[in-house]
Every structure is written in C-alpha cells, then in structure tokens.
C-alpha cells in the first residue's frame, strides 16, 4: 500500500485545506471543521443544499460545492460518515433563511448522523429536510440499497432547482424524483487501500474481479473471473435494464478513482452501443471520475430517465469544479 499523503489522520483536513487554497473563488471553509462551503457564503433567500459523507469519494462531495450545485459539503474521515456536529456546521453555512435540503446516501451511518444533525438544526430554528439516495441495484432489497454515483445527479438537479429560486418543498420534490428513478451498478478489478490501516478493501487474485461493489472498498456481491469490458458491461446493464425502461436517459460512466480515462471511454463506447441497441436514447452523457473510492480500479454505470424538467436542471450552469457547465 502506497499513499501520497502526510500523516494519515490529517489526510482529510489537509485535503480540505488544499481544496480551499487552490480554489478560493469557489470554496470557503468553516474554521477548524472539515466542511467546505461556498466562498461567497449562504445565498440569502435560496434554499441551501448540503451533502457529504465519508471522504475518499473525491470529487464527491466537496467538488460539487459551487454556484448551481451544493452550498456545503461535510467531509467525514475516509469512508466514515461525518458526525452530527459537523453536519450541523454545514447546515448553518448553507442556510439562507429559506430552509436547507440534505442529500444523504443510504448508509446507516450517514442516515443517522444527518438525521441527528437535522434534529439539532431544527432545535436552532433552521428548517431542514432531507432526501435519501439508494441507487445501487447490486443490492436486491430496495431498502438496503446504497447511495452511489447517482447521487451526483441529485446534487446537480436539486442544485439547479435551488439556484432557480424554488422553495424547499419544490427542491425536495425534484430531488426525490431523481433519487427515485436513478439506478447504478459498479465493479472493480483492483481494490482500494484504507489510508490508516494500509489494508485493501478486499483481496483479489490476478484473474478475479468484483461485481456489484460499493464505494467504501466493500467487496462486490459477486466475484468472477476477469473478462473483456464488453461482457462486463453486459453484466451490469442486465441488472440496470430491469429497472430502467428504454427511453430518453442520461448515462454516466463513472471511474472509481484509479481507472485511466482511456478505459472509461472504451467502457462508455460499449455502454452506448448496447443501450442504443436496446432502444435507449442517450440524451446526456457523462464520462469521468464523479464518485470514486480512493484508488479503486473499476467503474460504475448510472442511468437516469429524463423528462424536460430534469434535463433542464442537468444542463443549467454550474461552477462546481467536479461538474462544470
């Protein structure tokens, strides 16, 4: 395990410092807390949008802070959801007086910590609501599904809705619409390594890969012999097509952090061909690292059915470094 870091337990704070120093026009930081907010502060009258979770998913979540997307991102320790007091700081930083929406990925820890923070914020008189994203079709039981790359579409759409002046209820409604329709599934050929323990999330031999991985180094729901990406894509699409009807969709081929962009475009090439053959119209396409898992070598595919409202919000301007439009 080799890491390009200083002290492992300072990784998150040094990353946050680096981000804010590199992009002071976009990012501000709450002193002493690993929360990134907008450089220009909460926008008065606008619904605030807050997300976050464990770190290690960069550019998620801090990379989505910026005009048109998030107002604050709460950066927990690597793969560990942030604590309620941290989330509360994010909520306060995002509060422009018209309420704050939390975008939460469906993990026990995230859900509990964000809920606790919402209770604290409520006690301080801030109107807070939340939406839970659970887009990972690798898990068959829908209640247990993890929030993965589809979360980025929720950020983008809800962010654009908030920027356009919608109310908390309206922003929540469109966020829920995206969250309820978006579906993802991922795989990996190489694990990631936890910075503190130095250990890989799972041990694979040279001939194996994991299908249905999460974004916290968890092994997949199935281990298989490695094969051409052509047939890996078939495998993932088989699951996704069962839940997303043919029609107009946005597709995301998301790298897990250690995947060369060349491989992501080759993967996209197969994804596009197969989806078009199956009657889908790829109206919007996103290829790159959006929701990663440290240096994991793998990818996920996300499908989001499009209507006019969602498409407009996807295309709306965004100053966020991870999703610049």
């Amino acid at each position: 395990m080799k890491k390009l870091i200083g002290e492992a337990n300072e990784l998150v704070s040094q990353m946050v410092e680096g981000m804010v120093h590199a992009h002071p026009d976009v990012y501000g930081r709450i002193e002493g807390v690993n929360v990134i907010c907008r450089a220009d502060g909460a926008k008065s009258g606008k619904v605030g949008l807050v997300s976050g979770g464990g770190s290690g998913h960069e550019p998620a979540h801090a990379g989505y802070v910026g005009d048109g997307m998030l107002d604050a991102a709460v950066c927990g320790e690597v793969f560990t959801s942030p604590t309620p007091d941290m989330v509360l700081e994010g909520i306060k930083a995002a509060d422009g007086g018209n309420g704050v929406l939390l975008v939460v990925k469906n993990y026990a820890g995230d859900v509990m910590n964000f809920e606790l923070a919402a209770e604290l914020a409520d006690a301080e008189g801030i109107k807070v609501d939340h939406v839970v994203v659970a887009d990972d079709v690798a898990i068959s039981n829908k209640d247990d599904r993890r929030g993965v790359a589809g979360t980025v579409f929720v950020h983008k759409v809800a962010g654009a809705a908030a920027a356009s002046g919608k109310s908390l209820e309206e922003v929540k409604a469109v966020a829920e619409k995206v969250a309820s329709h978006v579906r993802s599934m991922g795989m990996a050929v190489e694990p990631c390594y936890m910075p503190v323990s130095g250990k890989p999330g799972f041990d694979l031999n040279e001939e194996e890969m994991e299908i249905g991985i999460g974004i916290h180094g968890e092994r997949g729901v199935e281990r298989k012999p490695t094969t051409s990406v052509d047939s890996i894509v078939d495998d993932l699409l088989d699951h996704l097509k069962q839940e997303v009807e043919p029609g107009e969709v946005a597709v995301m081929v998301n790298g897990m952090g250690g995947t060369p962009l060349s491989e992501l475009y080759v993967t996209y090439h197969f994804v596009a061909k197969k989806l078009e053959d199956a009657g889908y119209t790829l109206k919007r396409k996103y290829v790159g690292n959006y929701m990663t898992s440290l240096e994991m070598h793998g990818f996920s595919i996300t499908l989001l059915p499009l209507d006019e409202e969602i498409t407009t919000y996807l295309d709306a301007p965004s100053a966020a470094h991870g999703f610049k439009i």
Partner: protein
Amino acid sequence: MLTIDGLKEALRNAQSEIEANKDTLTDLDRAIGDGDHGINMSRGFDAVSTILNEDYDSLGALSKKVGMTLMAKVGGAAGPLYGSAFVKAATAFGDATEADFSLVKSALEEGSASIKARGKSEVGQKTMVDVWEPFLTDLSESDDFTEKLDRLVKDTEDMKATKGRASYFGESSRGTIDPGAMSSAIILKAIMKEVD
C-alpha cells in the same frame, strides 16, 4: 456499586482493550463492511479518555459527556449508536453518584433500546444489538458476564446479516463475527467489571 471513578476506570479499560483489538475490529469490518470500525472506535475512545480527567457531579453527567464525545468523534454507524446509548443511559443514571447492579442494568437497557431505535434494528440481524439485548435479558448479578458476552459475540459469527453494511453480502456475511458486536462486548465487559 458502580461509582463515578468506577465508570471512569471502565472507560479507560475499554479504551485500552479497543486499542489492543483495533486491528481485529478493522479486519472484521474489512471482511463484511468497510474496514474502519477499529479506526473509528479507537478515535472515539481516545477522545473519551481525555474527558475522563475532568470532574463530574454524577454518573448521568459523565455518561452524557461520554455519549456526546462518541457521537462527535466516532462517525460512521457506530458513532450515533454508541453515542445515543450513553446519552440515554445518562437519563437513567440521573444525578446518582453511584449505581447498584439494578440501576446499571436499567441504564444499559435504556442504552440498548436507544441503539435499536436509532438503528431501526432488531435482534437477529447480526449487529451490536445481538450483544446488547440478549446480554441484558434475564441478566443477574451472579452471571458470568464475560462468558455470556463472549458467547454472544461468537453467536454472531454464523448469523446472516440483514442490517448495516454486512447485509450487502447476504449469505456470504456468515462466517465472520460482527465487528460492532465485538466492540460492544469490550465496552460492556469493562463496565460490568466495575459493578461490584
């Protein structure tokens, strides 16, 4: 009787036991989770150990402070669960400066209930609940606490997880002890040891 100093001693012992088992906890979580449980617990109990140098008026005040500290430092799923357990136990301890077996038991029962409520979890799902709840059921002063806790931890090994990260792996979650069950046993053992 569990005194304030006794609870402090229990928490110090819990901290060193967690430190000693940090890698084991992490490895268990690596097998059926995301490999951070030992790291999270160690960070949290490090923070707890620093607040033990302060003075507390009551078991309730100490337990509440411990809960708030865990909530603010552990993160993940274990943070809010252990955090609210100690915060809820504090309401049972109240102003008492020492607690007999039965008060300790009710405080832990409050804690256990709060874990289940926060985690929306039940016995049998292969989580820390499988230690807390059955441990307290019919618990009597004459029980061999250590033996009982060790057995409960071991019992999680064969269970299929239906809650938390381990549930993602379905049948293949069997064969590994739940990391939260193990850390729970460490904490409960340390507390029970001071109830004499």
